[in-house]
């Protein structure tokens, strides 16, 4: 009996993170923004404050619970945008080929050539800090792998008999792409999206560090961690808990992605 350990651990951590993301507001003890009590600033973990308090005297437990919402929103939404862009471009490029394929390839190489963090940094500088900007910045800059994979998948699926059959039956191109190609390319795309979600959460943290992250009122794990980095020697709990939240979530997503790859995309493990 083979235990798919990565799937189990990864899935478990991901479900946990999602649960926190959804139920965070109910799990939190206090309001993460309004309940700043400067008299309680920087208290270590205790019975009252499970994860301690931050510099403003806010309950870190509550902020980590709320932060899940923002961090996961960033991860999920921007990755959805990436997936939509990458899949749309990749599938059409793979299916149609020709000049469109050349164009999409060029665009993909262009996106790859400018490292996504740099690109996101530029977009954040232009749009200004904030959640919406972040979703756009991270959503527009990480689709090249999805595009490449979905293009390769579309190319592979395109030569399958059932796509030929659909053409023979008179299906239009878009109908073929939607009903025949897309459903059969989703496996690897889901894998990339899962892995990419982790990357996006980390990118948000990196942008926060560089001063261009998502910003309150609501906290994100990345901004919490970034804000707490100065106190790593004096009040380590400030960075420990958001740091662990990021680490475990991204680890979970990565393990889940690896596990899903074994199931959904067994033949192309080494592509990419």
């Amino acid at each position, binding site marked *: 009996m083979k235990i798919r350990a990565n799937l189990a651990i990864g899935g478990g951590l991901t479900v946990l993170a999602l649960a926190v993301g959804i139920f965070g507001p109910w799990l939190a003890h206090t309001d993460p923004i309004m309940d700043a009590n400067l008299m309680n600033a920087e208290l270590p973990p205790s019975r009252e404050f499970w994860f301690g308090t931050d510099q403003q005297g806010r309950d870190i437990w509550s902020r980590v619970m709320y932060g899940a919402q923002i961090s996961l929103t960033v991860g999920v939404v921007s990755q959805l945008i990436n997936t939509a862009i990458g899949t749309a471009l990749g599938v059409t490029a793979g299916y149609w080929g020709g000049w469109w394929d050349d164009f999409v390839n060029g665009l993909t190489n262009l996106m790859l050539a400018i490292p996504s963090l740099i690109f996101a940094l530029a977009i954040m500088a232009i749009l200004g800090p904030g959640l919406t900007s972040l979703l756009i910045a991270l959503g527009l800059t990480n689709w090249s792998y999805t595009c490449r994979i979905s293009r390769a998948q579309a190319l592979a699926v395109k030569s399958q*008999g059932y796509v*030929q*059959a659909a053409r*023979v039956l*008179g299906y239009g191109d878009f109908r073929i792409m939607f009903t025949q190609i897309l*459903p059969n390319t989703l496996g690897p795309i889901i894998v990339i999206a899962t892995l990419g979600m982790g990357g996006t959460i980390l990118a948000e943290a990196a942008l926060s560090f560089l001063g261009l992250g998502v910003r309150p009122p609501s906290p994100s794990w990345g901004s919490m961690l970034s804000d707490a980095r100065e106190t790593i020697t004096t009040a380590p709990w400030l960075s420990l808990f958001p740091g662990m939240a990021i680490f475990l979530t991204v680890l979970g997503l990565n393990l889940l992605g690896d596990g899903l790859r074994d199931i959904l995309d067994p033949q192309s493990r080494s592509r990419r």
Partner: protein
Amino acid sequence: MDKHARADQALLSVEDLAVYFPIGGGVFSGKPQMLRAVDGVSLSIKPGESLGLVGESGCGKSTLALSILGLVNATKGRVVLDGKTVGEDTDRLDVARTVQMVFQDPYASLNPRQTVRRTLADPLRLHGVSNAGEVADRVAEMLRQVGLRPDQADLYPHEFSGGQRQRIGIARALILKPKLVICDEPVSALDVSIRAQIINLLLELQAEMGLSYLMISHDLGVVEHMSDRVAVMYLGRIVETGGWREIFEQPRHPYTRALIAAIPDPLTRGLAREKARGEIPSPLNPPPGCTFNPRCPHAIDHCRAAAPMLSAVDDGHLVSCWRADEFATPISA
């Protein structure tokens, strides 16, 4: 020439069709080469007739099939389906209602994410059958015709065996009631013990529905069994065509003879001298003269110098070989 194959009578007539593909080439990488996949092919099929198309990999039979279906553009020549020129007088839907295809690999030719019902019903809806009841009835009827139970319609392809999948493939090809069905190696991917079921089914359906078949196969036994007439292709050209009896009993082209000699069957022992040498050359740079000459056991100097034309040796039996007259003897015992 073939006086029976008048255009008005033929369901399908392919007239001097050529399909070339550019290979390679680009802004920085020089001139593309021309792959002559199909190079001047003419053939026709009458209503209710079966034409067997024989050839090995790279001979252009798949490209020919695709151009009949209007999915590949002709470089030269034309395809006339039911009196209409494909691509000019027809759109994709017209062609689809006239000609359909059964694919080789029953595993790859069914969308794994669609139920049998969707696979069969979607084309109907696409072609204007909007009444839900009628769609359901026709799907059920079609399944019955190919030997499946209507209650299996809601299963997914992986729940069927290879033979059953091929039945679904046939049902899909027939659901629009086409006149011509292109069968591309319909049994070669199936288990040996299943092949007979599918061959019998295809023949029954032909009789029942008055279908014409273009039967593409490298298995001469299957072709002989199913065809009225046979065409043999080699490197994009038809090298020999005629009635099934002429082709298999008195093949005039050395390639046809080599194909027969190559069948691993006790029946063909003793035909060693007819076997071809070496391998099929790349269609990118075919040999000069008769394209079969490097492999031909009977090649003479003239074969290397000039390409023979397809010409009649008998009523309806055309061969493209300089020495066709010398091979008038029957091949098998």
